[in-house]
């Protein structure tokens, strides 16, 4: 039984969140990534990456295509094993204590491949079984999520008939069902309609501020990162080139008064786009 399902802010409506028992006594980082490296054959995907996510903190993982964001997220949730370094989720090592560590994480991959031969209801019930969500209360919890993300009435249709946005919503619900302490979201707002995107952003803020859930998410929409992230980690060619609050990054890049886009382009070495734009216009 999960106590205290709470009504959230204006856009979140009745989406269920609520504190998890034991959260109040939590002190350290919900995620710590320490000197992690990963290669695919001879290609170095990540090199000595080090960052953390604290309780209630929203951290944006940014970087150009192929920078290593998705690899980092796959390592964090246990899909891949680091070649070197260590990843801990609430103190538990993802490699040596994987099953227990994974109980605390909710994950949405970049292009979530769901079991499309199941209905959304069956899929969410299946996920609840895997994560040990209380059978007595899961029905109402799932129904609230479905209503909040406007999927009610579609839950008994096969996922194969869903639009990309509907599949993304189902993946988001699946990541939230078991009251995770850390959310790892790889471009979670992809394909969402404006209302759903707003609901998700508000929900992330609410989960972080009220329930102390740590959030690590990647996006290419820098305005979103600027709007909701407490801190930002910028990856380029598998290395962290900068991390900190927007103000700290601004100082680091020597771009006082600039937005995140200018900082990002300056730090990732993709700043001078004049030639590219000129070539495309020809």
């Amino acid at each position, binding site marked *: 039984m999960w106590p205290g399902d709470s009504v959230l802010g204006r856009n979140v409506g009745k989406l269920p969140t609520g504190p998890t028992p034991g959260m109040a006594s939590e002190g350290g980082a919900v995620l710590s990534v320490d000197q992690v490296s990963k290669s695919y054959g001879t290609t170095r995907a990540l090199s000595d990456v080090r960052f953390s996510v604290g309780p209630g903190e929203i951290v944006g993982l940014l970087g150009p295509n192929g920078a290593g964001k998705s690899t980092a997220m796959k390592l964090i949730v246990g899909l891949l094993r680091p070649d070197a370094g260590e990843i801990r989720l609430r103190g538990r090592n993802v490699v040596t204590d994987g099953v227990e560590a994974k109980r605390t*994480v909710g994950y949405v991959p970049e292009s979530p491949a769901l*079991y499309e031969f199941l209905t959304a*209801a069956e899929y969410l019930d299946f996920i609840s079984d895997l994560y*040990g969500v209380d059978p007595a209360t*899961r029905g109402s919890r799932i129904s609230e999520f479905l209503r909040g993300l406007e999927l009610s009435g579609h839950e008994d249709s*096969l996922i194969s008939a869903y639009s990309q946005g509907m599949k993304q919503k189902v993946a988001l619900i699946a990541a939230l069902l078991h009251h995770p302490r850390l959310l790892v979201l790889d471009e979670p707002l992809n394909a969402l309609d404006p209302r759903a995107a707003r609901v998700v952003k508000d929900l992330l803020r609410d989960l972080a501020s009220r329930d102390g859930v740590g959030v690590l998410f990647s996006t290419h929409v820098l305005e979103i990162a600027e709007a909701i992230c407490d801190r930002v980690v910028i990856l380029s060619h598998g290395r962290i080139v900068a991390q900190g609050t927007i103000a700290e990054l601004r100082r680091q890049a020597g771009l006082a008064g600039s937005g995140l886009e200018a900082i990002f382009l300056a730090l990732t070495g993709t700043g001078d786009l004049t030639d590219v734009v000129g070539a495309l216009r020809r």
Partner: protein
Amino acid sequence: MNLHRVRRLAWVLVASQIRASGRGAHPKKATNQPAVYGWAALVLAGVAFAVAAVSVRGTGGSGSVLPSVVKAALPFLPLVGVGTVLVAGLMFELTTTAKFASSDAANWLPLRPQEYVLASAIAVAYTYSAPLALVLGAIAGVAVDVGLGGAAAVAAALSVLGLLQGALWVEMVRAVGQRAGGGSARRGRISVLLRALAFVVLVVVLELAFNPVVLLDSLSALQAFGHLTELLPPFWGSYAVLVLLQGNAVAAGLFAAGTIGFSLLLLYSANLLRQHFWSVAAPEYHFGPYRYGDPHPALRALGLSIPERALVAKDLHGFGRRREMMPMLLLPVVLLIVIFLEGSIGGGGIEGVGLMIYAGWAATFAGLLIATTSLGQERRSLWHLYAAPISAREIFRAKIVAALIPAGSVSAAVALFVGFLFRAGALDALGLGLAAAAASFAVSAWGLGFAARYSDYQERPRPQPMRPGAMLVAVVVGSAVALSILVPATLGLVDGGAVAAIGLVAAIAFTVAFGATGWLWARAGFVRLMREIPF
């Protein structure tokens, strides 16, 4: 119609199957080129031609009965072309995943429907050309030696047209099958059941229609109707060769022209059907209201944890609902029905001990197919098994149970089948059922071992849950394991007395030995696989 566009699209459609997405795909590799099918067909035809030609000369050459054998075989070739593509097309093309069907290039590129239909038919015909090439090469090797090279060339040309005709039939079924469910959503369970039934009927009918034994009987029967069969367009290709061999070149020309005309008519019909029925959206199946939080009590009796039960139930759902998984479950049933019908229609079926062993093998084949495909069928959804808080042991237990439940059901069905249809004794049927269940257990363990090592998780238009070479080895190993258990068990059942005791002991010993080694091998594979997602 722009034939250049048709050719380019056909190339892309063949390449899309050969080159899956993912790290393993190297587009420049020779085996990743669409030309590989053509080269394979040419090599097969050349080797068959050479072997046949050398064999004929070695055995005395054209003075024997060979000319009459060639004269009898050549008219069949156009029908073999149609049959090859029809059977392969139904088994593999029509089980293409809805995802690929609804994202076909034709849905968004500026292509005319007839261009897509022709390109797709050419791609299908080309893909399955190798078996025909083998038969053509062998018959041509003899035909040239006995002075029937010209007729062989005509038969070869008409056979290629037969391949295209078969592919156009497949296109028609594909277009109708992908139609939207109209205004109302389809009723889930009924649709799934009807689809399975339609699949069995289609495969059985076509397997029988183009089965050499049945075909010979049917053609003999048809010849009794004299000129009536000459009015049936599907046979015109065969008649063209037949009358050419009788020396009537004009009639042969007319029949050949008729075959070309019939092929164009098929193209026109396939195009019309596609325009009329094709829907870009995947058909929507609607199921009844769902009851949450009922963690599969029927599976609790097996001692499985809740996550394990969830995984088993998920896989079992998949067998019925995924059209790419349907052949895995239904193939053994089809094998049994075909052997029964062949025996009834052609009179040449196998009997006694042979039949019992065949039936047992068909039953274990279900377990083998399900186990070998149990991981590959997860495809990109495999990430769930790595991200969820479940251990490799739980996944392994769930997968083996998910294979054994349908395999056990098929074993029971086989026992009933043998018992009732072939009037075996109740004890024999029960014994065979038990032997098949034991063999299924051992075979499934080996199948899972292969699955853990050689599964293919790439998204492809046509499902390929395991690498083809590995699948071939798995079928050979699985069949050997199954037969090592089934043969002594069946001999014991039939002979009784001392043989029964020896057979029983041998069957049990082999079950334990192969089951245990297979289990350990599979477990080791799972532990290694679950370290890191393989894509």
